[in-house]
């Protein structure tokens, strides 16, 4: 009898293990699946951490200017919350992912920040490598942002999706080399471009950054 009780308790506590792996979660119903898919960040971290930065540098100080940039409209706030993007400080929003080789370590996988009238949406590749699910999630994030911040009509989004699929393939093949100088145009009227660039901070690897001008005038 005792053994049965213990087994039941053990089974009960083993159950959450499946869920906490995030990507392999068995989801109870369709409505939840939809919610998870919209929440791009949740595909990578079952809970978001506020962590201590892995450098000797002092914690980021928020300046007045940052605070000004930081103000999101209610619509932006709603979008960012839907996507699971949280405030990472310094005016940026994003989400973290657990280092598969070191469970105590996390790194930024997605980040969104406004810089001088340009919205930059980045995905980061540690050691230049995508993790499982990152490519589709990155495209989803790019298109969510394009849908929100540009006038690019929805039917054109499938072309942009295919462009990124081809782009990722060439990153994986090593054909597209990281360079901060090289930009790839995706849409002319909206002057949307992509940059595949090396990282120079405490995270090693590469980033793919989509630039969405918030005032669309490339002709000056």
């Amino acid at each position: 009898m005792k053994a049965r009780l213990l087994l039941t308790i053990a089974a009960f506590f083993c159950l959450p293990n499946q869920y906490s792996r995030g990507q392999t979660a068995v989801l109870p119903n369709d409505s939840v699946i939809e919610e998870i898919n919209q929440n791009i960040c949740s595909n990578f971290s079952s809970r978001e951490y506020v962590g201590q930065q892995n450098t000797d540098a002092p914690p980021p100080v928020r300046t007045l200017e940052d605070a000004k940039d930081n103000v999101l409209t209610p619509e932006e706030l709603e979008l960012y919350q839907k996507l699971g993007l949280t405030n990472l400080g310094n005016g940026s929003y994003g989400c973290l992912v657990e280092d598969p080789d070191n469970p105590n370590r996390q790194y930024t996988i997605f980040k969104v920040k406004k810089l001088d009238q340009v919205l930059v949406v980045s995905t980061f590749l540690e050691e230049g490598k995508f993790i499982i699910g990152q490519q589709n999630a990155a495209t989803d994030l790019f298109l969510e942002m394009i849908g929100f911040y540009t006038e690019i009509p929805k039917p054109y989004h499938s072309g942009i999706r295919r462009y990124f699929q081809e782009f990722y393939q060439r990153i994986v093949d090593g054909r597209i080399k990281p360079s901060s100088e090289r930009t790839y145009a995706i849409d002319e009227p909206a002057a949307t471009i992509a940059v595949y660039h090396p990282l120079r901070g405490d995270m090693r690897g590469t980033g793919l950054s989509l630039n969405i001008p918030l005032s669309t005038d490339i002709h000056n």
Partner: protein
Amino acid sequence: MVKTNLIAGFNNNLNFLAFSLFLTTLFSATQSAVAQLRLGRGIQPGLEGHLIEYQLQGQPLGNMRGIQGCSVGFGTKCNKTAALLQKIILENSGTTYQDLILKASGGLENYQNFLKYYPSAKDISSVTSDSFWVNASPYILDRYEYSGIGVLEPVSSKELYEIVSNFNSTSVTQNKNSLNLREGMIGLKTAYGRTILEEAQKIPNIEAKITEYGLNSIETAFHLQQFRYAVATLESNNYENTNFALYKILSNPYTDIPGEFNRPSLKINPKLDTLDGNTLEGESYIKSFIEGNAGAITLFNNPEVIVTLDESEETALYATLGGIGFTVLIIALVALNSDSQSSSTIAQSNGESLSLFGDSTPLLSSPTDDLNNPPGIIPDIVIGQPTVNPNNGEIASIPEPSVNPYILTITLLMLLALNKMIKARYSS
């Protein structure tokens, strides 16, 4: 008035069917027309990879020339006569592109042997409609050089010659005993062109089918003219003329804007090449015990504990609480004499434990008094806003996996110890 007419029309099933067919056609036509990239006059759908290759090879966007429009086909096949024929063949006899390719290349085995020469070609389905013209401009987007097939080395191979000799009558092997990789591809292209013409001719009233396809009259006339010319050259047995006609149906697209090789300038703003990009940096973090700080302080009333705790201890806190919950539960269980309980009751008590666990959680986040909560600690460390956890469902509230061993061990020990104690007490 229009609405009433429509509704009246819908009463007739046939009319309704025709109308929905019309809508479907309209919708798919519109879709293919706009599902592209908005660079200049537009990059046709399916040419995104070609565009990246064009950019990678350092060609200026401002010079780019390409297919204007895509009323039939996809990618490099856009607006080409072969794409129209292929669609009509598929609709009439069910023969797919793959079937046609296999037929053209002398069967699956021969085709697989052929593919071994093009290891970098992940998908050669575009190659039959890519442009191979030697002297064509490098600014043409649907050139085979931008198909991702890689550089075709001019090294000749006798074996490749033998493979291509098994293709559907291709002239590329004429007066040769070896072929280079580019010639091999031309072999496939022309064999495919010949096959598609032969298959099209098997369809009764093929010209009527082309006319009825639904393209505008100028476009229809263009494709009909190219088709008729190719059929005529096939019958003439003049290889040179035939090849020229095959290239036309495979690679010469319809365009409503004139341009050399029927590929007008795409009028992309040259400034798009020189735009500066902004980038962001990623950060890495070591997980630290920050979430639930307030709770820890309340519970242990000793700030030093926080300093020494690392990530796993955070979960230990939950474990302790879970342990307390379970102790209560187990006491209740034992008091009810668990030995005679049925398993269904146990399942039920598991449910209770959940609610107990849930009830104890507010203890963690409840505001603490100032004496027990040293000021200043939280604002210094917390660099982000409290996270909005969007998973309202079960996933978010589930404890970390590392909790399980703790709880399990504690439960085990407590269960045994308590049971023994109580038994001893009752027996004495």
